[in-house]
């Protein structure tokens, strides 16, 4: 009944999705809910939440790097005056990028949607749309 568009060809059988995600996601519902949700007839399959396209993988890495940079920047800027405008703006940027990173993770993990999916259907030959191989 749930319409998951499995946007990646790779399927992994994870022993316990909640534990795998525990470090990076708020605690998700109880086992009862999860079993009801993901069990089709027969085996229990969980689609791995990784980027399908190279472009998305690059975006993920870029965002993570930006977080490192901007946290460093904000820490330096705020050393001078923690109440200054520059300090506020610097931490706001950190928040913006952190949220963007988290949004991408949610899309891939919970929703199984690679944001480049529809673009790559139209333009499969671009570098961004190469299938990402681990």
């Amino acid at each position, binding site marked *: 009944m749930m319409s998951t568009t499995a946007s990646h060809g790779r399927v992994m059988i994870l022993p316990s999705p909640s534990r795998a995600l525990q470090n990076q996601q708020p605690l998700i519902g109880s086992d009862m809910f999860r079993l009801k949700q993901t069990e089709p007839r027969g085996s229990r399959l969980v689609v791995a939440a990784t980027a399908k396209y190279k472009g998305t993988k690059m975006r993920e890495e870029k965002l993570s790097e930006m977080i490192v940079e901007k*946290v460093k920047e904000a820490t330096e800027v705020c050393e001078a005056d923690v109440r200054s405008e520059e300090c506020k703006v610097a931490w706001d940027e950190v928040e913006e990028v952190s949220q963007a990173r988290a949004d991408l993770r949610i899309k891939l993990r919970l929703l199984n949607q690679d944001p480049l999916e529809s673009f790559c259907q*139209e333009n499969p030959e671009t570098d961004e749309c190469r299938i990402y191989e681990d």
Partner: protein
Amino acid sequence: MAVSTIYSTQALNSTHFLTSSPSSSSKQVFFYRRQTNRRFNTIITCAAQQTVVIGLAADSGCGKSTFMRRLTSVFGGAAEPPKGGNPDSNTLISDMTTVICLDDYHSLDRTGRKEKGVTALDPRANDFDLMYEQVKALKSGIAVEKPIYNHVTGLLDAPELIQPPKILVIEGLHPMFDERVRDLLDFSIYLDISNEVKFAWKIQRDMAERGHSLESIKASIEARKPDFDAFIDPQKQYADAVIEVLPTQLIPDDNEGKVLRVRLIMKEGVKYFSPVYLFDEGSTISWIPCGRKLTCSYPGIKFNYQPDSYFDNEVSVVEMDGQFDRLDELIYVESHLSNLSTKFYGEVTQQMLKHADFPGSNNGTGLFQTIVGLKIRDLYEQLIANKANAPTEASKA
């Protein structure tokens, strides 16, 4: 003599619009004008769309993917980004609803904000005139070219075409900030996360990132707090429904933010919106469902219901503290709540199960988000039925 008739009123009043077939036709009102002095009948049609506009205010811009998905899911169909457009678009489109991220109305991009020394929370970083114009246009059934704010690059990208949907949701930091935009909203929601829970959630969100530490997460929240308190927080007084998320009172000194106390604060007297209640409307109830008929695991579930006053408004508050551990707990609770606007017994539970993997599925956040979604559906149906029944004026040649 010009005669105008309203056609297909039945379709507007139909109750089968929840079928999630992607090819379901859009409901439109057609006006026919017949000129009897001519040799033939001239039929002029125009479609008048009734777009219902919902505002959702929350911190962290448009990161409310899960709330949005719950909301749009009530109407059937999955909400997806526009196909073939900018992959960094913040817009979500489903059969009935379009969700617009208000960050798209930033007047200053990341560089611009840095130069001017303003955060994204500051109204000076946002173009309220454009927001008002475009929401007004969409509400009147006119498509708009809406800018796109790219959260990855921090730039304003080329605009995307947005068609007027049946239900328009505008979500972001400032849906109720500008009075003109506020007046366009048919219903508004404010997601009010307490500081402790915000901190716990941001830790869960960011700790895995190598750039972050407890200190950086804390510093970021504190640096943004003055602007947040000045510009965002005051909007909650205008909201028709506030979902307040607080730390649990069931576990002493719990600071993990995993068990939550969630309050659904509903304004009284809002047109087409009848607040949810427990047992006896307008009374004060304290209810622990766990006991002889229902066994719950620690820390259990506790409900409260009472009339109250919120920023000089009369409100009703339903509150849930604790967690659902089993399906039968959820169904049991649902069967004791009233005015849920469900179409069948167990609809809330079914909706919660649909998104069992989403955060909040086992507590009040998921429960109240789902209930708000049903309330919005109810409001939408009433609004449409009301407009269809209203007498129409023939437009004369």
